[in-house]
């Protein structure tokens, strides 16, 4: 049995999905967290649950909404589980009405009854169920309350809607629906009434679907005739509007009969909003929060923890492994491979786990609390001036964690041009994998101003993205259409458990990558550094790795780090940005008594180190990000462009910083 979860954005579908399937998918308190369909299996094995992106209607405007409509038209599903936000019942029922027209078994989960009752809205679930003709189960998805009953209802009751045609669209429309249904008769397994109404509403996906099976001109004629007669008889501007008003009237009747209102309390949200989206304070508060986040990650909390972990790994763990290797009489090759390759390479990356988890914790906090959408609002003015909109800031913020979900999040941006622009620019956001490089270099060269230097890199990434957005949008991606309407969800006090889960979910990718990709990469890099044209166990400078790096090194000389070591680590950085650190740890392998940080001072000046960090920030999207860009744009040209412009801009900026800095007498 296949059951699809469907509902308005930010109504808690994914929270419920996680609760029912026991899996963990990405949740947050803003519209558009889920941009793809996700499949899970019910805990009690009654079937598969499909999580879909949130939509207001089945007539899509953006790409993530299109996912839902195509799913309805092209995939088979047995039952629909419609999640309603009880505090926004009227808006939510517009979708329910369309789902009922789809004539598939439907069950309603009435979520956020706690929020609704705080606002003084009481809903009689039983009566609502009678009116709609389908079962209605009240739930609180965040806490899991009511989920058992929901599962029970799903697995025991049949819930084919008992009532048909809840909305009467009036004589003219009903007649046209009948005409159009006749054209479609026998040619589709979908509800013809549903297809007809969606067609009249101007649903492009449905239009494409029906014109594939029947003559489009005939349908067009029916629709045009209907629109004309509607305009003549009623005072409406368009046919879709007329359909909307009819639906609205039916919903209002249902609401009047099922809900009662009393005075609720002024939501806390409004009090918080009066501060964080304050005219003058909004932007400073955002910057202050960012600053706190960086101080905690790089200075107050993260660095001491990473140092402690480093001490543990290079001290007891490394010597423990060394003793073990000696005890089993491992060959010199194995010994060197494990100590100089794996421990140095993988350990060098694992050291940064605490800092990365702290960063992810803050990103989760931003997402869960409801602040994310406010940031989009506060940033819209700036984004608009460079040809983007405030919503583009959300993918960028997520990009701070990892560019891949950031690029996916761009799907919620309605206009294709702005979406493409956001996809192209999100890789400039400094992701968590770049963080170890900064942490290493600021520790070695800028110990007194760690957080400040790192913050400067993050800000540089944003500034470069904004300048390029302006450049691209006024040259090759010209267009006037821009759309910015954003829902600002009520604030929610994040629960510790869900925060931890979402932090862990993001962070475990980093740990897993260290155990697989970086592990394999470290072995490979070490072998390249161990072997050379002259045979095995050569001096590092005569190794294959040095030869490869040496080819590129001269190009990097003008920007301050023309060594084969830097070049070799930059090449591996394309696979994954953390690989830069493992490569460096292997190349500069030193016995535990002196650290990599100390050693780096022999190879870089502080100015060259900053230039290097800037280059790492911008130079290329990693392999996974490149693949995502290709998947999301569907264009080799734009993917190549994303790589190409990044290389150029990174080189130019590093050149300016290094040569400019030298001019001013910096070293």
């Amino acid at each position, binding site marked *: 049995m296949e059951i699809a979860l469907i509902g308005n954005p930010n109504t808690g579908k994914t929270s419920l999905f996680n609760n029912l399937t026991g899996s963990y998918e990405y949740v947050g308190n803003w519209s558009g967290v889920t941009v793809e369909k996700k499949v899970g299996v019910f805990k009690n094995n009654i079937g598969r649950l499909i999580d879909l992106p949130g939509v*207001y*209607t089945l007539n899509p*405007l953006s790409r993530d909404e299109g996912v839902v409509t195509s799913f309805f038209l092209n995939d088979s599903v047995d039952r629909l589980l419609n999640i309603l936000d009880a*505090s*926004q019942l*009227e*808006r939510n029922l*517009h979708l329910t009405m369309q789902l009922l027209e789809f004539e598939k078994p439907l069950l309603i989960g009435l979520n956020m009854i706690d929020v609704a009752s705080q*606002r003084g809205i009481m809903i009689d679930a039983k009566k609502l169920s009678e009116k709609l003709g389908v079962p209605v189960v009240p739930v609180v998805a965040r806490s899991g309350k009511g989920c058992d009953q929901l599962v029970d209802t799903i697995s025991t009751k049949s819930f084919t809607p008992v009532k048909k045609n809840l909305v009467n669209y009036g004589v003219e429309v009903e007649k046209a629906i009948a005409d159009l249904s006749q054209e479609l008769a026998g040619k589709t397994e979908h509800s013809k009434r549903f297809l007809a109404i969606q067609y009249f509403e101007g649903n492009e996906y449905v239009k494409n679907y029906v014109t594939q099976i029947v003559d489009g001109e005939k349908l067009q004629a029916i629709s045009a005739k209907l629109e004309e007669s509607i305009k003549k008889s009623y005072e409406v*501007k368009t046919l879709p509007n007329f359909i*909307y008003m009819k639906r609205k009237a039916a919903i209002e009747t249902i609401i009047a009969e099922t809900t009662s209102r009393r005075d609720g309390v002024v939501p806390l*949200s*409004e009090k918080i*909003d*009066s501060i964080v*989206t*304050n*005219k*003058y304070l*909004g932007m400073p508060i955002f910057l202050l929060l960012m600053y706190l986040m960086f101080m905690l990650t790089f200075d107050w909390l993260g660095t001491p923890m990473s140092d402690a972990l480093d001490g543990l790994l290079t001290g007891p763990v490394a010597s423990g492994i060394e003793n073990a290797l000696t005890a089993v009489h491992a060959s010199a090759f194995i010994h060197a491979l494990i100590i100089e390759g794996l421990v140095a390479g993988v350990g060098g990356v694992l050291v940064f786990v605490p800092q990365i988890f702290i960063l992810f914790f803050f990103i989760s906090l931003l997402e869960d609390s409801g602040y994310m*959408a406010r940031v*989009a*609002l*506060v940033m*819209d*003015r700036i984004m*608009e001036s460079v040809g983007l909109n*405030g919503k583009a800031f959300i993918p960028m913020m997520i990009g701070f964690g990892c560019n891949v979900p950031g690029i996916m999040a761009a799907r919620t941006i*309605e*206009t294709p041009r702005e979406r493409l622009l956001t996809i192209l620019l999100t890789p400039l956001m400094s992701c968590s994998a770049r963080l170890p490089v900064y942490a290493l270099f600021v520790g070695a060269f800028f110990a007194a101003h760690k957080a400040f230097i790192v913050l400067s890199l993050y800000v540089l990434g944003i500034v470069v993205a904004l300048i390029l957005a302006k450049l691209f949008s006024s040259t090759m991606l010209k267009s006037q*259409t821009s*759309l*910015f*309407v*954003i*829902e*600002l969800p*009520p604030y929610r006090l994040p629960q510790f458990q869900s925060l931890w889960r979402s932090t862990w979910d993001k962070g475990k990718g980093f740990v897993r990558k260290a155990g697989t990709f970086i592990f394999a990469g470290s072995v490979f890099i070490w072998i390249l550094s161990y072997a050379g044209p002259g045979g095995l166990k050569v001096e590092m400078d005569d190794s294959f790795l040095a030869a490869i790096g040496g080819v590129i090194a001269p190009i990097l000389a003008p920007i301050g780090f023309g060594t084969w070591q830097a070049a070799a680590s930059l090449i591996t950085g394309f696979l994954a940005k953390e690989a830069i650190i493992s490569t460096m740890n292997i190349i500069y392998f030193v016995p535990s008594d002196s650290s990599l940080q100390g050693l780096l001072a022999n190879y870089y000046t502080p100015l060259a180190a900053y230039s290097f960090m800037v280059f790492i920030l911008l130079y290329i999207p990693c392999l996974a990000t490149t693949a995502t860009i290709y998947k999301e744009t569907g264009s080799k040209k734009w993917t190549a462009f994303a790589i190409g412009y990044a290389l150029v801009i990174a080189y130019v900026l590093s050149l300016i910083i290094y040569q400019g800095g030298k001019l001013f007498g910096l070293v």
Partner: protein
Amino acid sequence: MFTSLKAGEKGKIVDISHVGNLVKRRLLDLGITEGSEICVKCVMPFGGPIMIESCGQCVGIRRKEAVQIEVERI
């Protein structure tokens, strides 16, 4: 005109037809259309977006679109 309302003031939408199609559709999705009561929550500086509240939900829209919405003060 929308912008005649100050933060905290309430109004009713009289005419929304001058707004671009996409924005109009999106507002309609959120249940905001002619006849809806709205309250201006805050106005961002430098011609930035405004935040309005309607039926208990908050929505941010751009100033230039807000200007095109005809509102009657209540």
